[in-house]
């Protein structure tokens, strides 16, 4: 019980600091994922279009995803220095795979008869992509985004190791100071963030599916 009152007290006393860290966390994750969307959707489309490139693109992003997070950050800092931007690039790399793969799968899943119908009505390949294939793949993309967001929120917690503050600051300094209160003060908002992202993107996913139906 003592612990919970201590934790509550700490969180109330440091609420503005915690709020600032939470916002920074969100911004970092949002930038990383925005970049991943910007690069990942075209890559997914290319992979779906040119079958020969698909295994290369998918495996390359897959390997990026498999790099242990600590090593990824250590390597990135060698080339990019410390701080916010480096972390954004790291999050971008980790979010790429689910987005590329799901865009790819989504486009591939579009029923051949629908495509034939589109072609029959005189659509160019680009129109086909923009008006039929991509919109129909959005539920898949949303599912990918959902997976990516949970991973990105978790990886962003390692930020302090490369000088990028965010909720990880409380967790990691909590570990070095052996302060459970600090660990929880960082872990609880971080977990909530991941849950909220998971929940909201899950809702979006269902809604986009319904719209398709």
């Amino acid at each position, binding site marked *: 019980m003592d612990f919970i009152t201590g934790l509550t007290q700490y969180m109330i006393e440091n609420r503005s600091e915690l709020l600032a860290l939470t916002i920074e966390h969100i911004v970092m994750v949002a930038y990383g994922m925005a970049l991943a969307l910007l690069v990942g959707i075209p890559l997914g489309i290319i992979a779906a279009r040119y079958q020969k490139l698909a295994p290369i693109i998918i495996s390359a992003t897959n390997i990026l995803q498999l790099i242990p997070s600590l090593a990824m950050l250590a390597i990135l800092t060698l080339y990019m220095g410390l701080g916010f931007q480096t972390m954004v690039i790291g999050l971008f790399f980790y979010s790429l795979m689910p987005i590329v793969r799901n865009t790819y799968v989504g486009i591939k899943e579009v029923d051949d008869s629908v495509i034939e119908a589109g072609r029959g009505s005189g659509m160019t390949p680009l129109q086909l992509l923009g008006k039929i294939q991509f919109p129909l793949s959005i539920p898949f993309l949303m599912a990918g985004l959902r997976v990516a967001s949970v991973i990105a929120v978790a990886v962003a917690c390692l930020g302090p190791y490369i000088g990028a503050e965010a909720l990880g600051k409380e967790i990691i300094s909590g570990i*070095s100071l052996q302060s459970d209160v600090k660990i929880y003060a960082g872990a609880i908002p971080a977990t909530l963030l991941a849950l909220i992202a998971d929940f909201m993107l899950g809702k979006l996913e269902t809604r986009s599916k319904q719209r398709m139906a």
Partner: protein
Amino acid sequence: MKRFINSSVFALLIILLAACGTSASSEGGEVFEYGAQKNTDPKIMGQILKLLVEDQTDHEVNITEDMPASPQVMGGIDRGDFDFATLYSGEVYNNHFDEDQVEYSTDPEATLEQAQELFGERYDMKWYDSIGFINQYSIAVKEDFAADNNITTMTDLGEYANNMILGTDNSWIERDNDGYEGYQEAYGYSFEEARGMDVALMYEGIANDELDVVTAYTVDPQIIEYDLKILEDDQKFFPPYEASLVARNEVIDEYPEVADILDSLVGSISTEEMTQMMHEVDINKRDAAEVAKEFATEKGWIE
């Protein structure tokens, strides 16, 4: 789709803007960057430096904490991300220089001289003389265990070592000169098992009897708090880790008022004093800034 592109482009722009960053203090001076490793002593040094700089000049100091280890801090200095840091003389033996450049020694003066010269040149920075405290590796066991078995030196420990589990940081096991391999050669024994982990956990581990022996850092307050005994290094195996402030040459050349403050901190804090401050932070869970301020006031460095 369009919205995706718009927001992504916007994000990119923001990132670029963030990269440019501003660095003017509220009083029109510079904002300097201090990089601190995970351990508490560099964090306290950062707070002390920040206090003095902000008290005596128009400049500000921004502290970045919890860098994984010194190499990342040095990398930050190299790229200009950091202007100041606290580093340790013995780090000159940590795989930074070729064997023909650096000569391994456990003599404090020779070690400090080499660190000042080699690191100073490589990173274009000034490595000041020691602040006064030493934070080197040592071997520690529980005090009652040492008393019961009459252990005072690292050699004495040899008799019991093959039944003991050692807790250490993640890199000691892999160090060439002053690491586990060298230790086994110097003392002629090895432990049953050696486990790497976060340093804070190593103390928790020995306090909870999950570990029997740890590679304690000499300045750490947990040594007193958990009744640990540092064994005498009778083979003179561990190199000295005298703490020094470092600063990029560019900064101290341009801002002599800052250089004066750095100079004034040479020889200013003893190992006992640093341990005392760390005790407040690590054990009593107080804020490092607050503890630093108290100390600086007590010393009469600030009003």
